[in-house]
């Protein structure tokens, strides 16, 4: 039985129950029913396929004859038999349709009082909106509580897919699509030592989810993929879903990511935002050309815009480019960046500018790190 395999011991981290399983781990209330239906259909297919393939080979062996021999029979048709095999399978089809449609309706009917999280998809990343201006690329939800995602896209069609939840919905620009699910397995947390070790080894760059298989806050996670082709970095348009055990735990995490911690420099916070909020997907810091201009030697440098005007990439230009990204485009690039208006606080933007200064030799020299005034603006 395939279904039994789902209960085998954990060999492949959190995503799969076993090496030979058909499905990722079941982690939402939809999963068990969906998988049951999948195997129900599969067994019906087997029920039909095995006799068909069996007959195919058996007839070849049994009725294989040298050339010139006549067929044993030349029956032209048998209407009752043909009607039987036309009509009888239809009952199976009706069963599949009804069960599929019923549980689909359930998946489309959001329960009263579901937690609402905003989701914005853009090329190539995700922003989850937890309200009160708190945004983060990771999706953090509560266990055993329905969560509704209100989804919009700022550019092309994307699609949210969480295999562990067996749930998927396209994110279409120009409208809000919604989906809901109720996770029933909470994410485990790794030990403090393991987390600290990983943070040191990972360094300052983009957090390597694939390598560590837990988030930089130490939670194991479920994958969230984009499944509607959306261009160059479609295949890395992924994020993670973390399921919290308690409201307190979730609130603590939201609090933690909502603003720059008191003990962090703007440069460090800006670098974190650069890695987390989708900047790194299009803007390199090593000078290589991606979808957008590289941030290396960008701050304070002179640029030519698409309309031919020269411009210096000063603080104001960078701020405008973050908030109104389609207005002043550097020659040679497309106006494809989504606006971050309302998604980054003034302090966030100032931190990003501070970070850009550290990767550029141009412009007024970046203030030395000992500058107390800069580090404590948010007090």
């Amino acid at each position: 039985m395939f279904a039994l395999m789902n209960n085998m011991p954990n060999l492949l981290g959190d995503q799969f129950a076993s090496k030979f399983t058909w499905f990722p781990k079941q982690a939402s209330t939809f999963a068990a029913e969906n998988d049951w239906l999948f195997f129900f259909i599969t067994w019906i297919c087997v029920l039909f396929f095995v006799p068909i393939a069996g007959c195919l080979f058996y007839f070849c062996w049994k009725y294989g004859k040298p050339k010139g021999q006549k067929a044993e029979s030349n029956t032209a048709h048998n209407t009752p038999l043909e009607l039987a095999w036309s009509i009888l399978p239809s009952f199976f089809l009706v069963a599949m349709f009804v069960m599929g449609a019923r549980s689909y309706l359930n998946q489309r009917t959001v329960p009263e009082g579901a937690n609402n999280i905003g989701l914005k998809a853009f090329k190539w990343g995700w922003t989850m909106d937890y309200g009160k201006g708190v945004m983060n690329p990771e999706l953090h939800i509560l266990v055993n509580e329905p969560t509704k995602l209100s989804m919009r896209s700022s550019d092309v069609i994307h699609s949210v897919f969480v295999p562990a939840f067996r749930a998927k919905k396209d994110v279409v620009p120009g409208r809000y699509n919604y989906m809901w699910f109720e996770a029933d397995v909470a994410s485990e947390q790794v030990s403090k030592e393991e987390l600290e070790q990983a943070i040191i080894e990972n360094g300052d760059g983009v957090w390597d989810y694939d390598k560590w298989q837990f988030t930089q806050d130490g939670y194991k996670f479920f994958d969230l993929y984009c499944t509607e082709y959306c261009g160059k970095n479609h295949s890395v348009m992924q994020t993670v879903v973390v399921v919290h055990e308690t409201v307190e735990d979730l609130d603590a995490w939201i609090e933690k990511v909502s603003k720059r911690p008191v003990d962090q420099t703007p440069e460090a916070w800006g670098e974190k935002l650069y890695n987390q909020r989708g900047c790194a997907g299009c803007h390199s810091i090593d000078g290589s050309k991606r979808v957008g201009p590289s941030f290396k030697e960008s701050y304070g440098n002179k640029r030519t815009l698409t309309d031919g005007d020269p411009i210096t990439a000063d603080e104001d230009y960078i701020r405008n480019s973050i908030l109104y990204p389609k207005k002043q485009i550097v020659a040679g690039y497309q106006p494809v960046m989504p606006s971050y208006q309302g998604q980054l606080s003034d302090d966030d933007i100032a931190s990003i500018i501070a970070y850009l200064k550290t990767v550029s030799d141009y412009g007024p020299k970046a203030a030395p790190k000992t500058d107390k005034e800069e580090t404590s603006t948010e007090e």
Partner: protein
Amino acid sequence: MSAGSLPSGSQVKDPGYPTPSENYLTNSKGVLSWIFTLDHKRIGVMYLVGVTVAFAVAGLLALLIRLHLFQPDGMVFQGEEANNWYNQVFTLHGAIMVFLFIIPSVPAALGNFLVPVMLGAKDVAFPRLNLCSFYLWVFGALFFVSALCASGLDTGWTFYTPYSTTTDSSVILATSGAFILGFSSIFTGLNFIVTINTMRPPGMTWFRMPLFLWATYATSIIQVLATPVLGITLLLLIAERTMHIGIFDPEYNGDPVTFQHFFWFYSHPAVYIMILPAFGIISDLISVHSHKRIFGYRFIAYSSIAIALLGFLVWGHHMFTAGMSSLTTIIFSALTFTVSVPSAIKVFNWLATMYKGSISLTTPMCYALAFIFLFTIGGLTGLHLGTLATDMHLHDTYFVVAHFHYVMVGGTLVAFLGGVFHWWPKMFGKMYSEAGGRLSALLVFAGFNLTFLPQFVLGSRGMPRRYATYDPEFAALHQMSTWGSMLLGFGLLVALVVLLRSLKTGKRAPANPWGAATLEWECTSPPPFYNFERAPSVGDPYDFSNLEWDAENERYVKIEPAREIVPEEQPAAEPVHADDSK
């Protein structure tokens, strides 16, 4: 004349061999005699060469895709532009396969050659339109490929908006190419409809047509009715890109899902343009190589028409997750299930045809068996996708990729190969190596399964499609798939070599090497340029009772019992009323 294996005293009916001046391949010489030919057989051969080249190009791209996916981070394309390269390659693979190979493969290449000969006619109804459709195909192909190569195309073959209205790759050139190819397809369809309606010989009623003609007829109806919608959609897409008319792009108050409705209203029926002719081929192949009357002729014929009509009503199942209302989604799911019934009927009828037959495991039969096996898997896995709840998980994953490859490659391509092997002796007058042909069928079958079976599991495990790089947990299955694709590619190469070698070294083909009863086997191999001197007498296309194997000449012949010609009664010398005395 009658050899040992033939019943003595019977009369053999066999057209013999064509003379070089009759043979359509040699009756006129020079490049111009091909370029300006109006002979449907030569146009069919030119199409065959064209679609084979297109297939080879797109097939090599497929191997490139599989090689790239051998490693999670991508093996072939490297550097900053790696993903762009990958996206262009999969777009090119899909677009060429769909528009330049699968859609024209059976109807245009085999259909052009076979439809008039099967009808006992001298040509199609509009030979000039036929040549025109071929040049539109060539023109569209050049347009298309050069557009794709110029600044590339990275939209996928589906051109989904608003990606296609905002990307800076050459969407307008490519859609114009597809637009032109659409006309080629419409012309072919129109030609066949008129030909089959008006040029059937006396005695060939609708239900005495070979099933290949039924399938071609059903296909042509779809081509004529659905392709214009694609043309309109592509024109609207161009208008949206250049003039921002605001129909598809949300930035100008359009709705991207509208594009999907328009696009799939053509492209789902197009799936049946691809598979229906394959059904026709398999119906003929199974019957001929089992030397047994096709079982349930009428059910097979009607089911082709049913598929053609129902195929127009199920396009919404490509958009179950796009955001249609729940009611619409459920209605489309129900309609989708109805279309599976006629396909199932065909499979059962083919099996019943083999039952108590006299099966010859020739190369075409091996391909036909592979078809039934693979198409059944492709069809059955469609049930998982038509069921709404499971589709929420499987939509846009590798499960879908595996499903449609089982139908398009395991189905259409394998049937096309079976058809080419079956009619090759008729088309070129040469027999190929049976051992080589069977080996190719085995390699293709094994390679295909190794490539695409793992992809079902990849999909149910959550691997999204169109990914240039992927999470390491999927690596093992991807590697299996890549090895399989190499084997599949090798098998196809063997098939090509076997066929091309036969042109050089193959034995001369008799008029009827398989023992088929349809009309194309009653003219010589290859047929004379005029096909038939006079309209042949039409019998039952699936009556094999008077076909006998002539072992001495390695051919099947039609025999008739020896008849003594009774002298006609002479009228009496004197009128009966002459003797008035009585």
